[in-house]
């Protein structure tokens, strides 16, 4: 029995993909700040997921005889004006921030990718219509646009997703469009066209995979942005509503007690700062690893 060589050896493109992935991972691992960011985010995700098992306190239990206590061995960061443990509230707030960082980014990325590829590949009227719509969305100051959506739909978590997705898709579409324009002129796309491949197949089987590295970078950099916008909305009172625990809301409520217990407002702010920094480090690391030309 003869062995057919292509059973044993992987297809050439598989080798190339594997080495691209390996190169990327190696470049990413060499970036010390990116690795620090990754470790921080991993710990945060675990802490948020297992919050009820980590913290002995109930984030919603009101204890009026234990208001605004300083930090102690029972309450590491003290208690807030309702006698709730500040660290536990921050831990539960991490759930909101992480979900708000990821879900709207995924939505805006999906919308932006589809519209960007359509716009770049089809050109003409489709391109004109999509890009003018994107121009308009980008002209709105992001926070005001999100506030208008929250005003109209009401303040809750689902609407925060919608508001932030609406704010984010346009800039994704612009980047994806310009990449599609460049890819459209490449030989392999021309070859596919000459083969009689359908437009839809070209767009989503040939062009889309080549945009993925950019999408990964955009995704990792839009997470900190979304976390920042959510905390700002919640701080202004149009985001997560009490008694929910969002970091922005915790700062807003804590600021009334800056004199007696500054930790109540300052600690959740540090949580936002560190998380946003960590995601920015990861994003920078991914960008440098995936596409060195985007550096500087």
């Amino acid at each position, binding site marked *: 029995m003869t062995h057919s060589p292509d059973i044993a050896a992987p297809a050439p493109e598989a080798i190339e993909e594997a080495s691209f992935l390996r190169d990327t991972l190696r470049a990413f691992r060499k970036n010390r700040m990116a690795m620090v960011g990754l470790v921080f985010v991993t710990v945060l995700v675990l802490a948020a997921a297992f919050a009820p098992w980590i913290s002995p306190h109930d984030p919603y239990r009101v204890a009026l005889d234990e208001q605004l206590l300083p930090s102690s061995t029972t309450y590491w960061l003290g208690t807030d004006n309702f006698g709730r443990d500040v660290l536990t509230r921050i831990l539960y707030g991490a759930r909101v921030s992480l979900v708000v960082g990821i879900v709207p980014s995924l939505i805006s990325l999906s919308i932006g990718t589809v519209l960007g590829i359509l716009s770049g590949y089809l050109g003409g009227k489709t391109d004109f219509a999509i890009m*003018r*719509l994107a*121009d*308009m*969305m980008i*002209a*709105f*100051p*992001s*926070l*005001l*646009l999100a*506030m*208008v*959506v*929250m*005003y*109209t739909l009401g303040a809750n978590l689902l609407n925060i997703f919608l508001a932030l997705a609406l704010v984010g898709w346009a800039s994704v579409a612009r980047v994806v469009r310009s990449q599609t324009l460049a890819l459209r002129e490449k030989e392999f796309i021309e070859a596919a066209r000459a083969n009689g491949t359908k437009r839809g197949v070209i767009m989503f089987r040939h062009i889309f995979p080549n945009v993925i590295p950019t999408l990964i970078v955009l995704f990792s950099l839009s997470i*900190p942005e979304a976390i*920042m916008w959510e*905390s*700002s909305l919640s*701080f*202004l*009172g*149009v985001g997560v509503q009490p008694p929910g625990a969002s970091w*922005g809301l915790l*700062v*807003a409520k804590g*600021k009334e007690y*800056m*004199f007696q217990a*500054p930790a109540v*407002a*300052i600690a959740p*702010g540090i949580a*936002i*700062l560190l998380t*946003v*920094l960590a995601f*920015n480090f990861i994003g920078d690391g991914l960008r440098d690893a995936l596409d060195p030309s985007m550096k*500087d």
Partner: protein
Amino acid sequence: MLMFALRRILVSIPVLIGITLILFIMLNVVPGDPVALMMKEHASAEVIARVRAQMHLDDPMITRYFSFLWNAVQGDLGNSIKLNRPVTDLILKAFPNTLMLAVCAALVSWIIGIPAGILSAVRRDSLLDRFFMGFSLLGVSMPIFWSALLLQYVFAMKLKLLPVSGFYGWKYMILPAIVLGWSSAGVIARLTRSSLLEVMRHDYIRTARAKGLRETGVISRHALKNALIPVVTIMAIQVASLLSGAVITEAIFSIPGVGRITVNAISSRDMPLLQGAVLFATALVILGNLVADILYAVLDPRIREQMKKAS
């Protein structure tokens, strides 16, 4: 050049009209009766019906949009429901405060950002460069509301050097301007650095060095002029981020500006006021982009030549 500017202005008009449409649709699909929602349980059915008629809420959506657009073109943005005064008056009265905050903040961001960017580029990969770039990342990653609280706590509550909040003179402007400017200083520093690094690669810089010019001369007389062009245009685009930031800064420091009007309009469910304030802010952003594009062409002869060829 004039043709280019004119064409750019003409292109902005449909964008602005599109924005009024998007905004109008977003604010008018509110589930439930906006008047009843705003007045809560205090109003009788009669009063609600009268206010609805006053606001033409019973007309078809299309009619309402076109009358809103027509009035807006004439500078009439309707009446605030809560304050019962023309929205345009309220905004124009608040705008100078927001403008002053934004200008001071922009100055702060340039004074910190440009020198930091230049030093980082000149001493590339040095400790100084890493320090400034780390600092700028910190500026971008800090929520404005939180850095505002920190500064309030340290400089107003603890050291008692500056007032906590309010708006009664230049002393009240210092903390808000630093908070808002600090957040965009990082962006300016990064841009200045990368733009200067890019320019330093050019041949004419090598020529200047070969001529025997000192490094400071090379940078100040030859490199900076070109490196600062993108920075100048970014300043005009900064309008959008400064306006978003002003909403939060004004809320914390109780500055009676357009940002605070917006937040108040939301909490009192004052739709015409919210609509007017957001439209005004967005028009400013479009104006900022327009200025940026034109400035770019004015400052960079290469772009100018391209424009000439294109038109």
